[in-house]
């Protein structure tokens, strides 16, 4: 799994591509930890290129959300693909990690 990080001004966009599984989970945490340490408060994880997520991947997303909130920020997810959406709905985690249609829409202007 590869990660790209982009400063979008209003938020930082992290795009993981590939399979978010047990192998990739610690790497996602590392990337988000880096963003938070660098002062990023609003983080959008763009899941447009994430084709698969297992329970470890979901665990990593939850851990990242907690990390962002603890530092006074927030983390939102966008462009969720079918398999990942299925995992979010089965586990009812979409109530906590609500998917947004696009990264731009995740943090509306306020």
């Amino acid at each position, binding site marked *: 799994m590869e990660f790209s990080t982009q400063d979008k001004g209003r938020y930082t966009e992290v795009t993981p591509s590939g399979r978010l599984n047990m192998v*990739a989970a610690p790497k996602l945490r590392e990337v988000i930890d880096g963003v938070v340490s660098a002062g990023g408060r609003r983080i959008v994880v763009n899941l447009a290129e994430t084709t698969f997520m297992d*329970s470890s991947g979901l665990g990593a997303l*939850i851990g990242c959300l907690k990390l962002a909130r603890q530092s006074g920020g927030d983390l939102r997810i966008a462009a969720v693909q079918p398999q990942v959406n299925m995992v979010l709905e089965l586990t009812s*985690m979409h109530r906590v990690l609500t998917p947004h249609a696009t990264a731009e829409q995740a943090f509306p202007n306020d």
Partner: protein
Amino acid sequence: MKSMTVSPEPRRALVVEDDVDIRGLLVQILKREGFTVTEAATAREGLEKARAGADLITLDLNLPDGDGVEVCREVREFSDAYILMITARTDEIERLTGLETGADDYISKPFSPRELVARINSLFRRQSRQAAADVAHADERQRAAEVQQNLLPRDRLALPDYELAGRFRPSRSVGGDFYDWYGTADGLHLTVADAMGKGMGAALVAATVRAIMRSVATQPNLETAFATAARATEADLEQTSSFVTLFHGRLDAATGVVGYVDAGHGLALHVMADGSAERLPSAGPPVGAWPDQTWAAGTVQLEPGDALAIVSDGLLDIYETVEEFTEAVAGVVTASAGVEEACAALLDMADVPEVADDVTVVILQRSPA
């Protein structure tokens, strides 16, 4: 007297390289090191020959018909061969080591034969050390697997008018799935859980959850009992930043009513006698996933011939949608002669390479009238 020597299996190497001169050099070096060598000049040919089996693959990063990184990832899907990536640019190596390519080592062109041999020997030394460590761990894993299998319920419940069966197959020697049941004055209690991740860590969480769920068996109110268990579990999970999906049901045998709480599991199916099925949605996130959750109880009425099938997400991996999954499971339950057969058939369905996760199936069926 002459002692007998056992010569080891010859090691197989595959050289994937489009440059004829470099390929020739690699082949020559590897043959001298005792490898039987096959060659490929393109990515496509390389993939084909890799499927035939290899212990070592040298892989050029820039192939005429494809990117070496992609070839490497594809090879990794089916092969444990030691992969040595070869690139013409030193600065590429830095970029590559940051990626999840699946390669074991990198070397830049031009390389000296001595350097190449040193790298290969070090790769194989690492492998033999790993093999020794694996043997030591295998024993321990075997014992852990036995402990875990022994935690599964073995008592056949003597409930008139009901049949109950469960199966668990971990993806490794132990896993994060478990199921449990025990008889009560009114019928039975049933738990199916899936701890995040795989292997030993998940198995430890599963064993803890089993004990906690049993400890609330005597609390008469289902929601209160579940909430008590969830709070205790959360305290343990906090330390490991893990979570567990849980389905807990209580059957009143006389009426066929099952009261249940589903925390992030979402894969319990009510399969009706006529073959139709309804999935019971989860009432909230998995236990330990998010603080301050409550889970509302639901009820399902088992009429004669109806079944309750609770499956772990391992089996879901072979279906595109939850609807397809529901239909397939209902089909198997309806077509099977009994719950044992249905469990076996569902486990067989999951016995394909796509399923990399633990697989658990528990089926409770009320006998037809």
